[in-house]
Every structure is written in structure tokens, then in C-alpha cells.
């Protein structure tokens, strides 16, 4: 058996599972887990913004929480202060995250590696402290609550995220669309440029790529992904809080991405799902579940430095090689 049918089977299985979640999960476990899976989808989109920068352009951002926070606050303030309806508020969140990413990216992508990691965390800290101190507007660490406007009206009937099934599918569709967009970008000439910069930025510049502009484009795209996830999370929790802009939130996304497999499309999803599922299962039985999370992060980088998806891909490649090698072996043995 070669790896390809195995991979296709897994993809189809996952897709079928994700589509049937709102009926399958309440029947098998508990309807609470539908909201856990919704949350996993949102956070995995956030992790994939780290992945786009680190896995495909080679820039390790430690400050993606800033754009998550802007997506979150853009949406929440749009509804709460400007009385916008659903879609304009969603748009405001995304646009403010991208605008912030553009402004900070213009400065940040001039730096690389350690310096880049540190300037991104510094930028996010600046706005974290600003958000904490502007309590009347942002609510500080306590955050602000708002009530959800309906998503759309069809034939006099209003559909809103207060319906858990509708909310789940809304998140699933938005996250899938974003991941599909990411997939298309990575496989476009632009994406090849990203990879060239990741592998060797000097060589990339010598073949005529504008490294600075490409990095900036990737940075704004990552801001888009983080902004969408922040806006979704604001809708999901019906609130926004400065605490989601702290550097530890960015750090978690880095951990999820690397444990899941940086530079792979589904790595962030796998890493996020793993950590959130463990948190949900263990934390209800054991107060000190972060011990397990910490241990898992350490074991993952020691035993699977390419991440879980990287491990899986290596396994598939070996299967393929064995399948390709075996006929030749019999040929050699024949005469």
C-alpha cells in the first residue's frame, strides 16, 4: 500500500467528520464538545498565521496576538460603539488587523531571525499595555461584552451565531475558506517566492526577487489570518479583552504550530487540536494540567522536531519508497 490513498482516505475522513460534527458529537459525547471543536478551528486559523510566516517565509513572529487582538477589538468596538451590523463589524476587525500588520510590517520585516522575533513581540507588548491603560475604551484585562447582531436574514427569518450549529458551520466555512486561500497563495508564484526567501534570502534577492516587499506581503497576509481568527473569536465569546494581546497568546500559537508541523498546511490544525483537546479532557479531572502540556511540548520537540504532520509525511514518504523499491528488488533477484 502506498502513502497516497492513505493520505486521501485521511483527508476524506476528516472532511466527513468536520461536516457531521453538530450531529455526531452530541450523539457520541456531549454537545459541549461542538463548541470545543469550534474553538479549535478558530485557534488553528490563528496558528496558521504564525505558520505562514515561519513555515513558508522563515520569519518567526512572536507577536501575532497583536493582530488577533485588533481583529477582536475592531469587531467588538464596531458592534458595541459604532452600532455596526454583523458583516461591517467583521470587515472592520479584519481591516484594522491588516492595517496594523502593514504599519508594523513596514518596520519589522527589515529585520530577520532573532531580531524579527523580538521586534514583533515588542510591538505587541506596546499595544497590549496601551489596551490595558485605555480601560474606558477597551475594558482592559476585563474586556468588553457585546450582544451579537444576526448574520443574515432569509425570508423574514434571522440566522445568528446564537444557534450553536449555525455558529459551528459559519466558523468551519470561514476557516476553510482562509486555509484554501492560504493553500492557493503558497502554490502560486508568490508562494514559490516565499519559499525561496525561506530557504536562502540572499539567493532569492540575487535572482531578482524583492525580498523586502515579499516579506511585507506575507506579513500582511498573516495579519489577515490572525485578524479573521480574532474577529471569529470575538463573535464566539461575545467579548474582547486586552489579555488576548499578551505575548503568551502569541507564544501558544508558536508552540501549536511547531508541535503540529511548521511549513505544512494542516500542521497548525493538528497541533492546536492536540493541545486544546488535552486541556479540555485533563483540566476537568486534574487541576495541574499545564504540567502535562509543558511536558508534551518538550517531548514533541525532542522526538518529533518536524512536528506531528512532519512525522506523518516522513512515514508516508518511506511507505512510497518501499512500494517503489520492492518491484526492482524482485527484478534483481530473478536472473
Amino acid at each position: 500500500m502506498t502513502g497516497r490513498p492513505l493520505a486521501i482516505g485521511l483527508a476524506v475522513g476528516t472532511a466527513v467528520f468536520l461536516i457531521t460534527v453538530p450531529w455526531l458529537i452530541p450523539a457520541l459525547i456531549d454537545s459541549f464538545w461542538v463548541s470545543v471543536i469550534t474553538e479549535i478551528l478558530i485557534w488553528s486559523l490563528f496558528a496558521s498565521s504564525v505558520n505562514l510566516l515561519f513555515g513558508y517565509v522563515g520569519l518567526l513572529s512572536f507577536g501575532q496576538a497583536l493582530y488577533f487582538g485588533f481583529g477582536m477589538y475592531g469587531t467588538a468596538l464596531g458592534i458595541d460603539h459604532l452600532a455596526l451590523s454583523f458583516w461591517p463589524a467583521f470587515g472592520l476587525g479584519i481591516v484594522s488587523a491588516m492595517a496594523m500588520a502593514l504599519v508594523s510590517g513596514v518596520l519589522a520585516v527589515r529585520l530577520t531571525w532573532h531580531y524579527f522575533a523580538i521586534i514583533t513581540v515588542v510591538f505587541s507588548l506596546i499595544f497590549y499595555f496601551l489596551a490595558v491603560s485605555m480601560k474606558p475604551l477597551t475594558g482592559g484585562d476585563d474586556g468588553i461584552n457585546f450582544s451579537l447582531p444576526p448574520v443574515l436574514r432569509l425570508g423574514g427569518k434571522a440566522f445568528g451565531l446564537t444557534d450553536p450549529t449555525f455558529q459551528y458551520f459559519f466558523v468551519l466555512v470561514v476557516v476553510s475558506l482562509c486555509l484554501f486561500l492560504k493553500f492557493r497563495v503558497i502554490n502560486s508564484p508568490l508562494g514559490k517566492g516565499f519559499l525561496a526567501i525561506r530557504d536562502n534570502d540572499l539567493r532569492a534577492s540575487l535572482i531578482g526577487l524583492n525580498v523586502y516587499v515579499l516579506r511585507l506581503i506575507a506579513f500582511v497576509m498573516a495579519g489577515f489570518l490572525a485578524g479573521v481568527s480574532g474577529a471569529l473569536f470575538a463573535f464566539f465569546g461575545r467579548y474582547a479583552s486586552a489579555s488576548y494581546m499578551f505575548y503568551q497568546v502569541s507564544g501558544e500559537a508558536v508552540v501549536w504550530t511547531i508541535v503540529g508541523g511548521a511549513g505544512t498546511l494542516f500542521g497548525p490544525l493538528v497541533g492546536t487540536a492536540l493541545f486544546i483537546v488535552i486541556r479540555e479532557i485533563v483540566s476537568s479531572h486534574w487541576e495541574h494540567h499545564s504540567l502535562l502540556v509543558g511536558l508534551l511540548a518538550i517531548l514533541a520537540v525532542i522526538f518529533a522536531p518536524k512536528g506531528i504532520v512532519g512525522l506523518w509525511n516522513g512515514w508516508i514518504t518511506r511507505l512510497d519508497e518501499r512500494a517503489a523499491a520492492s518491484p526492482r528488488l524482485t527484478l534483481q533477484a530473478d536472473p
Partner: protein
Amino acid sequence: MKDTVLLLAMNGLIWGLIIALIALGLSVIFGLLDIINIAHGDFFMVGTVLAWFSLSATGNFWIGFLVAPLAGFILGAIIQRLVIQPIHGAAALSIVATFGLSLILQEIVRITFGPTPRRMLAPIQGTVPLFGVEYDIYRLLAAFVALLALAGFFLFLHHTKLGIWMRAVRHDRETAVAMGIPAKSVYVLTFGIGFALAAFGGAVAAPITTVDFRGGVDVLPFCFMAVIIGGLGNLPGTVAAAVLLAFLEGLIQSVADPTIARISSLVLMSAVLLLRPQGLFKGYAK
């Protein structure tokens, strides 16, 4: 008004000397092992907790000054062997590994020490007149101890065999190994020293700040700032930057609230990163 400015500036200066100790540990680990140590703030926090435990166990505050760095050194050496060595200096992986380490250390302290922050009483109470203000004696003593430790560390680095080995491996690992320096042991030693410096800083700072399992979270960005502004791997620069940053924050705090002070130093740091990524002090010290 003048008194407040002076008081806050002095507080900043002394806090800067303590931060310098911690940041020095971070810089040594970073420079030699190429590890971005997310757990470094927690190494400091472990130091404050060790000081708390040794005070409550023995009733003698000063024993903490011995226990914290010693236990820190041993813990650091063990952690290097178990966690850091297997990842072979891959910086991205080191972030994940030390993030995990940070969670584990915080959780262990939460289990043993408890979730509530506590205040520790200074062993010497009272104030002395200094430049016209009444100043806390313990803080002055803390500054003196921190200065001694800084001087001791630089003496160690330049005048002992181990210190010279550390510098040699950092400078050129291949040659150092060829000359018979056991690089692997030097790495273990370096990580131990890095932890010990942070833990010692924690023991000195324990009566000044609160003892809390999340006490390292705020210290970490500050230490990174000092390391960057001082110039990566520039140890005297790190010390100077830590003192300068904390002093400036203290000064700004006397006219604005602490958050504004923190934001100003972050903005300063962005400017340094963008304009002088090699650090403020390149060319003044090597």
C-alpha cells in the same frame, strides 16, 4: 516632588542592577547556546520562591542567598542535559521547549508554594537619609549585593579556567574542542550559571517585589530588552542597558503612570532595534 523623582529614580536604579543580574544570565545562555530562553523569567521566579522557602525553613533570610543560586545551578545543569541538549541548538525548537519548561516550573511552584502572591519581609528594616530623602536600607544593601555579584561574575569569566573555557567555546567552538575543551560540559555549566544568576537575582529581589508563581512573566520582556539594547552577546552592554532602562522607567514613573513608563521603554527598544540592531554600546565595549 523632587523627593518623589529622586526616590523613583533610585528605585529604578536598584531594580536595574537586579535585572542586570537576570539579564546577564539570559545573555550568557543566548550567546553560548543560541537558545531563546522563554523560561528565564521563571528562573528568576524560582529564585524568589527558594528564598521564601529557605526563610520559612531556617528562619534565616541570608541562607536564601546561598540556596537560590546553588539550587538554580543544579536545576539549570539538569535541565540543560535533559531538555536543551537533545534539540541541538535549534532556536525555533528551543522556544517551544523552554515554553514547556516555563509552564512546568510555574505549575510546580503553584503546587508547592500555592497560587496566592505573598510579601516577604526584608531582614533589615528601617531607612537611612540619602540625598535628603529617607531611603530603605534593604534596597541599598540589595544594590550592593547585586553589584558584588556582577563584579564576581565578570572576574569569574575573565580570570578562571572555566570562565575562559566559556568564552573560548562561544568565540570558536571548533577550535575550542580541538584544543581539548569539553564543549558539552561547558554548555551544561553555562546553562547552570544562567539559571543561578536569575535565581540569585530572585533571592535578592524577593523582599522588594512579591513572591508569586507568575512573577517571571513581567520580568522576561524586560530582560530581553536589556539583552537587545545592550547588543546580543555583549555582556557589559547588557548590564549597562538594564540599569539605564530601569532608571529611565523610574524617572518616567515619577511624572506618568507605570504603564506609560513601560510603553516608553518599549518604544525606545523598537528604535534601538531598527536603528542600531547591533546594540547601543557597540564600539564602546567588546
